[in-house]
């Protein structure tokens, strides 16, 4: 699975993406798994109310299931327009 990071989430984690095999069933479980990797992930994901997520390029929620998902992206609230 590809995990992408954008904006300050990318800056805090230090890389634009990770590729990993995961058994996480939901976005939430994936976040917990990532937080176990290194302190910078813990810092980036310390306040999930300021994190948005997309699963396979569609906006998703923390409890969105990951079955079959190829790409998960984490980023701050969007500021387009």
């Amino acid at each position, binding site marked *: 699975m590809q995990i992408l990071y954008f*904006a300050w989430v990318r800056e805090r984690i230090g890389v634009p993406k990770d590729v990993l095999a995961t058994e996480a069933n939901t976005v939430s479980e994936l976040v917990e798994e990532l937080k176990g990797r290194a302190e910078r992930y813990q810092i980036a994901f310390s306040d999930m109310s300021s994190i948005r997520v*997309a699963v396979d*390029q569609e906006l998703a929620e923390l409890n969105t299931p990951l079955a079959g998902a190829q790409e998960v992206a984490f*980023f701050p609230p*969007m500021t*387009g*327009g």
Partner: protein
Amino acid sequence: MHVRVQEEPFDLGTEVDQFIRIQDNVGAVVTFSGVVRDTPAQDLDAMEIEHYPAMAQAALEDIATQALNRWSLADVIIIHRFGRLTLREAIMMVGTAAPHRQDAFAAAAFLMDYLKSRAPFWKKELRGGRWEWVSSRTEDAEALARW
């Protein structure tokens, strides 16, 4: 429906003109354009827009489709830039063409509210030599509630 995500600057006048020219039978055209403006402290040197390439085009097309389904519209255009921008440059535009003005106005406002909170773009400002991410505004998230 015309949706473009691009790094190059675009000319608002030219786009508005072309958008009107290709319409067949509309009475009302509304356009919105977002422009890089200075900070209250007048220290903005540049803006950088990061985007999620694989998602941005599809997200804008989805928002445009929602507007087309919801109002009686002849056409919709959305252009959104990414990369480096300077003061007074156009960041993006939306345009709606409709038989009647109420539809054109409502759809353009809807597109903007959705774009602000649902399109994967993030603005960063260079102010006095320091880059800072632009915070999302609570009112922008709340603006969606009315649709």
